[in-house]
């Protein structure tokens, strides 16, 4: 029983990690508290449903189109909402409030078009494998492999490619990046595209299993933020560690309490971290003055 | 010794960061910002601290005003017989026992009016809690009126009868020019009951006319309010004309201290701060 929950936790955690990584990519480099990120996660499966079920396009193609459209939404948020505010040197709070505005609009647009109720993309029950007395579904395997592959690829690129150096340089010092003639506004678009990609994959993987409604984004975003903070803000490995820890913690808490208390537990952990270890597992302490 | 208002006894401060040596061994490198600073600030005198960028002058100010902790050493403040251990007093209480500070940047409140900037500077916080917002109307009004009168008197004393500050007292402080904001920051220090005032580069970035005005104001602080002034300054003529005592800090140590003329003419100070002119001049002459 314990091991079953542990494995379930790790699989959920891998999705948290992927989604959290997308958030961290934007937050660590641009310092935008990107609440509108929640809607990317929510909107991707709706795009998929439109092409797959309404327009009867092949699954692979539908997934590709859905992901591309989500990336376009992400880019539009940066181009039409954030970039002009950054140019005006608005304060971080103004950016965050605008982000809330984007989120409100998108959630209600989706609710207008598709309705408030839960939609199912894949009605059939997933096959499952039994190893000893542990059950793993086919979907869970797909989830774990897909998120691991994307996280792994990202980490490799981050460490060894020019893109990785640029990302980490921008996290350290954006002004200095400009001094070495890096096109910062252009590179931000790349970052927003990748973060949109991660949110879309996370959203589709989860919705394939459980379905979606217009409000699934916010709880996921909250988990992603908690994962980021308990991992440690500023490091790109942090959301991965934080996501897995959070996933396991929540799964085990289901064992002790009940599933309803998941969010409260996540945030109690967050508050404990904020109080006693604000730099998270692997982050660095910030110095005041 | 009775004349000393601030005792800084062998205060040290260092920041450390880890260094990786070959093969991954990590050690700590201590970067010493202040190294056993000893300074006795004389009551009623103007003491100037000079030294190049990064020598630790502002760090010393941050330590005296409680924004930074010390690693070692003691700080005592003795305004009138009473002895306060500054390491044990939280920063906000310093103003209440008479230590004032003006920062390098102006640090005025841009969204408060000129007059509000003065009123808020009263170190007596009467009326500044939520409870008194509802009650004690009469006393509050009286105190506010009294504060305002005091502020107007200060403006008049510093800037004469028809001054721009009284005229603009209902405008946001951000509408003042940079120089005027600096003057307002200085005028604000008259609102409290300060015995010791720390001024961090009062003349940085202002024009010569204002420099003269600032010197005048600092004089008034000493003459009319018996304040003791400790100031960081790069403007040498300003230091020469104003200060009584001078301290030269180099790489975290006090290297020379004494009267202004003594310190400024000290060849060692010249060499390490502005450049060694005498020896250098000889060499260029030789070349020519």
């Amino acid at each position, binding site marked *: 029983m314990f091991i079953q929950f542990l494995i379930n936790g790790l699989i959920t955690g891998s999705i948290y990690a992927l989604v959290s990584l997308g958030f961290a990519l934007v937050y660590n480099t641009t310092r935008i508290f990107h609440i509108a990120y929640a809607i990317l996660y929510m909107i991707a499966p709706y795009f998929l449903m439109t092409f797959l079920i309404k327009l009867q396009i092949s699954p692979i193609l539908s997934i590709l189109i859905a992901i591309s459209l989500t990336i376009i939404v992400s880019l539009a948020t940066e181009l039409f909402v954030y970039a002009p505010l950054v140019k005006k*040197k608005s304060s971080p709070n103004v950016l965050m409030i605008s982000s809330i505005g984007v989120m409100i609009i998108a959630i209600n647009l989706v609710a207008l078009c598709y309705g408030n109720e839960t939609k199912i993309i894949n009605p059939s029950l997933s096959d499952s494998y039994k190893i000893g007395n542990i059950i793993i579904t086919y979907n869970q395997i797909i989830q774990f492999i897909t998120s691991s592959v994307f996280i792994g690829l990202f980490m490799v690129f981050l460490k060894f490619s*020019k893109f990785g*150096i*640029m990302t*980490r*340089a921008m*996290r*350290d*010092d954006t*002004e*200095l990046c*400009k*001094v*070495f*003639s*890096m*096109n910062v506004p252009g590179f931000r678009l790349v970052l927003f595209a990748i973060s949109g990609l991660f949110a879309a994959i996370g959203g589709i993987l989860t919705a394939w299993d459980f379905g979606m409604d217009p409000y699934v984004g916010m709880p996921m975003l909250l988990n992603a933020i908690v994962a980021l903070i308990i991992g440690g803000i500023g490091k790109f490995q942090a959301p991965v560690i934080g996501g897995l820890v959070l996933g396991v913690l929540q799964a085990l808490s289901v064992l002790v309490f009940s599933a309803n208390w998941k969010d409260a537990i996540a945030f109690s952990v967050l508050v404990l971290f904020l109080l006693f270890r604000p730099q998270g597992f692997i982050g660095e302490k910030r110095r005041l003055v | 010794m009775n004349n000393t208002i601030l005792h800084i006894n062998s205060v040290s401060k260092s920041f450390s*960061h*880890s*260094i*990786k040596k*070959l*093969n991954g061994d*990590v050690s700590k*490198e201590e*970067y010493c910002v202040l190294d056993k600073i000893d300074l006795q600030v004389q009551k009623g005198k103007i003491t100037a601290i000079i030294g*190049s*960028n*990064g020598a630790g002058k502002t760090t010393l100010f941050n330590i005296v005003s409680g924004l930074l902790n010390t690693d070692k050493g003691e700080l005592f403040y003795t305004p009138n017989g009473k002895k306060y251990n500054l390491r044990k007093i939280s920063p906000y209480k310093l103003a209440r026992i008479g230590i004032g500070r003006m920062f390098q940047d102006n640090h005025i409140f841009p969204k408060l009016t000129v007059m509000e900037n003065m009123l808020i500077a009263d170190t007596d916080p009467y009326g500044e809690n939520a409870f008194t917002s509802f009650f004690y109307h009469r006393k509050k009004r009286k105190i506010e009126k009294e504060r305002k009168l005091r502020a107007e008197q200060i403006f008049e004393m510093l800037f004469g009868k028809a001054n721009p500050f009284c005229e603009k007292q209902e405008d946001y402080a*951000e*509408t003042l*020019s*940079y120089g005027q904001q600096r003057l307002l920051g200085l005028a604000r220090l008259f609102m409290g009951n300060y015995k010791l005032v720390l001024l961090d*580069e009062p003349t*940085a*970035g*202002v*024009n*010569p006319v204002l420099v003269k005005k600032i010197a005048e104001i600092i004089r008034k602080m000493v003459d009319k309010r018996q304040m003791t002034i400790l100031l960081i300054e*790069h*403007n*040498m*003529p300003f230091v*020469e004309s104003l200060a009584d005592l001078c301290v030269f800090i180099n*790489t975290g140590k006090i290297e020379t201290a004494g009267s202004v003329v003594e310190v400024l003419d000290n060849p060692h100070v010249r*060499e390490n*701060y*502005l*450049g*060694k*002119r005498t020896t*250098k*001049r000889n060499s*260029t*002459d030789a070349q*020519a």
Partner: protein
Amino acid sequence: MLKLENIHGGYRANHSILNGVDLNIATNETMAIIGQNGTGKSTLAKAILGMLPFCSGTITFNGISINNKNTIDIINKGIAYFMQGGRLFPHLTVKENLVFAGSGQNKTDFNNSLSRLKQHFDLIENINKFELEASYLSGGEKHQLAMAMALINNPSFLILDEPSAGLSPQNTEKIYEVLEQIKKEQEVTILLIEQNVDKAVAFSNMVALLKNGVIEKVLDVSHAKVYEEIDEFYFE
């Protein structure tokens, strides 16, 4: 090479730090700017690079007007900038810092520049340190790395903002030695911002005295009375 005419500017709308700077820097000349804190030395550097929020006046570089241009476009004309305090990317390794700084070059050019810099900076030659995160370096090494990053693109124009600030005397000597050698090896115009008059005079041909956002005097270093003039400037 660089011509500044009537530059006004600052970080906020109602506070201008530069009040009409006029300055001419000829090709292959080293111009030092000295002056007290807050007179606008670093602000002037930022104005040249288009990094100042409020700035007016004309700046021409090699005959082309560069005011109101993007920082990137200005940098790409062959200008390098050593920022105050030796700013670098603390979480990138020494190698990555250099790769990032030299990302405009192709591989062979980059390797050439790197081997050239190896002769000057023992830090880069030290293989053990090449893969270390920059935050693990000592203060002097960080300055070396920042300087190497400024030099890696073979700039024709170099802006150095207090290369010696916060360094021990030996490290200061080292940095200036390297700069002297670079000057000998290649054609480079330098704008040096320096507080230490000695260093400034020893290193440059021209010295500009900045006060209250205005250039008060430009002195030729070979002029016999340069120290008297500077003295007068500092002590009125």
